[in-house]
């Protein structure tokens, strides 16, 4: 549905429908009419001393559901929010920071045409096949490049990813697994492997959904695993793609919020099973100052039997309180 059509239909936000023809680099850029959009990079880093680190960088774009004819340059129509986190087992706890700003005076914004999104001094941009990001957080810094060798991997049905049973509950979604990482963490050289998701939607969650579990794993054999499910109240499953199931094996209770997270999970995807074990248990992220929520987002190893077959990230939302977007 293009802009003119949805405006003509009297809608504030366009609806995600099947049959969207992805075009790159255009679809790497922002889709400002849609209610939500995010560029989400996770990955494992190795320091020069061979230590493992996990990182997460997410830029959110939100369009406000406010009609506003105010000509002021400060008039808020879009917000850019960002989370960044660094998991270092030696620190024992997630280091994280966040940013939130209105799109005004070029202090925060996102571009159409290719990936370029920023809020204050945090940014993510794509040039040719390489993404660059700069994050200066309270107690860590990341200056990383991600080189993409493969074409984007369209998720769901050719990039149309259903999130609920209702017709509108869906997103446009593609992933870029196996990104080769170079750059610096806290000023020291690192290498590694990352995963980027780009997803935009106007109705990401069904009315009854309270959160989701998600994982994106770069498999050692060159394959990629992405699995998710939307949870409803009382642990029910609001929606899950066919053949996907999550079986919690072990929980961890946050000493700060008391929230219980299933940090060790057995993921079944069709015939295959992967056991996800966290790099460390405490990877809870308090993002109340930006997106207003607390969630668990952590580096995990994927095991089959006792053998590690991949590395990636597990995301557990809505365990603190029902998720609201």
């Amino acid at each position, binding site marked *: 549905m293009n802009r003119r059509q949805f405006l003509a239909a009297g809608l504030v936000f366009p609806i995600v429908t099947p049959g969207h023809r992805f075009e790159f680099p255009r679809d790497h850029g922002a889709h400002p009419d849609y209610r939500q959009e995010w560029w989400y990079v996770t990955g494992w880093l190795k320091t020069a001393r061979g230590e493992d680190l996990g990182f997460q960088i997410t830029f959110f774009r939100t369009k406000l559901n*406010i009609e*506003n004819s105010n000509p*002021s*340059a*400060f*008039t808020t129509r879009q917000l850019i929010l960002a989370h960044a986190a660094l998991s270092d087992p030696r620190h024992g706890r997630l280091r994280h920071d966040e940013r*939130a*700003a*209105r799109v005004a005076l070029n202090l925060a914004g996102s571009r159409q045409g290719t990936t370029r999104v920023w809020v204050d001094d945090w940014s993510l941009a794509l040039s040719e096949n390489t993404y660059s990001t700069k994050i200066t957080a309270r107690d860590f810094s990341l200056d990383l490049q991600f080189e993409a060798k493969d074409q984007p991997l369209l998720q769901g049905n050719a990039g149309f990813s259903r999130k609920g049973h209702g017709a509108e509950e869906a997103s446009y979604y593609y992933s870029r697994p196996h990104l080769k990482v170079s750059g610096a963490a806290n000023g020291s050289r690192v290498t590694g492997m990352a995963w980027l998701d780009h997803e935009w939607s106007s109705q990401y969650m069904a009315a009854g959904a309270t959160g989701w579990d998600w994982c994106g794993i770069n498999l050692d054999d060159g394959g990629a695993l992405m699995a998710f499910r939307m949870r409803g109240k009382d642990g029910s499953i609001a929606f899950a793609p066919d053949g996907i199931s999550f079986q919690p094996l072990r929980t961890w209770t946050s000493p700060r919020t008391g929230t219980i997270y299933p940090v060790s999970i057995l993921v079944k995807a069709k015939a295959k099973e992967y056991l996800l074990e966290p790099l460390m248990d405490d990877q809870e992220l308090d993002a109340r*100052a930006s997106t207003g929520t607390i969630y668990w987002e952590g580096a995990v190893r994927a095991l089959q039997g006792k053998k590690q077959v991949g590395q990636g990230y597990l995301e557990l939302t809505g365990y603190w309180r029902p998720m609201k977007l």
Partner: protein
Amino acid sequence: MFRLSLLLRHADGRALLSMFAIALGVALGFAVHLINRAAVNELAAGVRALAGEADLEVRGGRAGFPEELYARLARLPGVAVASPMLEVETGMEGGGQTIRLIGIDPLRAALLQPALFADDPARRLALLKPDVVFVSSGFENSGNKKLGIISGLSKVELDIAGVLPASSLRGIVALTDIATAQWRLGRLGELNRVDLRLEPGIDREAMQRTIAEMLPPGTYVSSLDAVEESGANLSRAYRVNLNVLALVALFTGGFLVFSAQALEVARRRQEHALLRVLGLERGGVMRLVLVEAAVLGALGGILGIAIGYAIAVAATNAGVADLGAGFFRGVAPQVEFPLVGSAAFLLGGIAVALAGALLPALDAARAAPAQALKAGDEQRMFGRAVTVWPGVLCIFLALVLIPLKPLNGIPVAGYAAIACLLLGGIFLMPFFSTLVFEKLGPNKNIPYTLALSQLRGAPGQAMVSLAAIVASFLLMVAMAIMVASFRSSVDDWLGAVLPAELYFRTSHVGETAWLDPALEAQVRALPEVERVVFLRSTRITLDPSRPAVSLIARDGAGLHFPLVGKAYERKEGDPPAVWISEAVADLYGFHPGKEIQIPIANKQFKFVVAGIWRDYARQHGAIVIERSTYAALSGDRRANDAALWLKPDASIAAATQALQALPGGRLLEISGPGEIRKASLAIFDRSFAVTYALEAVAVIVGLFGLSSSVAAIVLARRREFGVLRHLGMTRRQIGAMLAAEGGLLALLGVGAGLVLGGAISLILIHVVNRQSFNWSMDLHPPYGLLLGLSLLLIALSSLTAVFSGREATGIGPVRAVREDW
């Protein structure tokens, strides 16, 4: 306890009176202290509440600065958080109240001031909605869902979405989004404040210098500490003035203690002597008198603290925490009870009482018991205090102090000069009284001649009464002349600045109302109107450490001025002219002919000072420029006020109706010069309410002080009256003698009081007021009032002497004389 009961038994009203005088001084000082503390704390807390964890604050004048500056500051390396603001005092619909409307970016403000959102993080997003405000808990809202404010000549309604937690913002404040504020106040593209928090480890002063270089003229960066301080500085001179008045009350209290104790000591001479004979040491007698005074001081102090606290609470509850001077509009302070402060005031009261009782106590102790038990020894007090040097020294010191410059804007030297003059005058009184009474010759009137020789023969006694008369009367005179001069000067000034027949302005208060050029044209086109002068007023900062100066752009700027001093004739090639108020001349050192820089619309422009005018309305200074010049430089063609001259055949009523019929005309406030004058004088009287009250108190205290000291002397002379009766004088003749004594004394005291009071009033007018408030005034002594007071004083003095004499002669000549043995 023994002494206390004695004291209470003896309490003949004079002791009580001196206690009340001390209570009054303490109460006044304590109330001023409490109110100010509360108001200043409130202001500082207000600054902190909004600025939160900011390190630096960038502020523009009322006109502000372009919003791009905020973006540049936000991107500056070393700046962690930049929070943009548009902060204005805006008039509220339906009434003269204002509210501080603060436009913020909630996402930025949350980083500096978490308390605004801590209880409800969703408020950050709720504020992003158009035309939404959150009001502070200080805003009294009777269930209204809308906040109506005045912008230009129209009303803007904003939705009240909620109330902020009480701890987050003080005063009467509405918080809105920066975009809403810019649009609804007609200030698109402008901000007037950016709060900055720096990255850890950044050198704040270096950063302040870097930022200062980025700022347009008229915009300044200052540290938050400096901003907090400036709130207190705003009213400092006024507070010091009030505190000095409180000191005057304390001083009078001390003087009353002195005369009351002198009387007591004279009365109880035999009693004290008896105690000495019974074995009490010299020091014991002295201690008796001092303890009594200390008890008086302590009782007065405690009473004063209670009264002061009550006054402070009542004043803040009644919303007059600005002490009548309009310094703290929009803050709702809470009075606390400071233990240390109250202890200091209590000790002050005791100290004053002790100081007052010291001389009588010394005198009581010095008396030899054997002699004191006999008659005629009461006249020793002050017998030796006739040397002129201390007095001359004091007067000389006063003359040296008068021309000194103020210290931090406080006329310390001026106050000191007044104190010196007062002391010097009192010290010199015995000398003058001797001089005067020597000159007066005896005549056939026996009571008069007796009175004269009594006054000649006992200069020490005369000194006590005279000092009381002079001290109280000169304070009355000085304050009366100062206040009357000020009021008449204000009255004359109002006449000079209100030459037109009709005035109108937008809403009564606030910074957000204006008249647009379209309305201006319509007003000029009205058939009733002969001539209109429009006026645009804004605020500019010439020095970030001082409060902003008013910039007044006026049609025909050079006309209708109460100019003082010499004007400067503009020459060819001079920049445009400005006329500066006395405050600007004093504070910034400008003088006619000087070229100065004034920031207008974020640029510096050169002007030449054409003249200095008197302005009682804007204490922090005002600069007047030609409106066409201002409009050309700033592009601002709006106006705030207008003065109308009508065609000869047009009536004021018709013109008023025509104005009200214009679009937006019902939001205009239209008044004649008479009403404005009346309202202005009412404001003046309110600001001086404290001074008036003190003046009344000084009069009452002075009169009682006088009567008690006259009574002291008369009562001590009971035996003398007995002898005179034996010699054949009638009681009537003794009464006449006493009346003559009192009258002569009072006449001398009134004369000296008038001279000294007049001199002190000159210091008040030309030094204290000028340095405190930077305005000059003309001398207008209230002759009628002074004459009345003089006559009252002389009459009262004679009457007191007569009544005391009646008491003293009432016991019969035989018993009176027998008291000798």
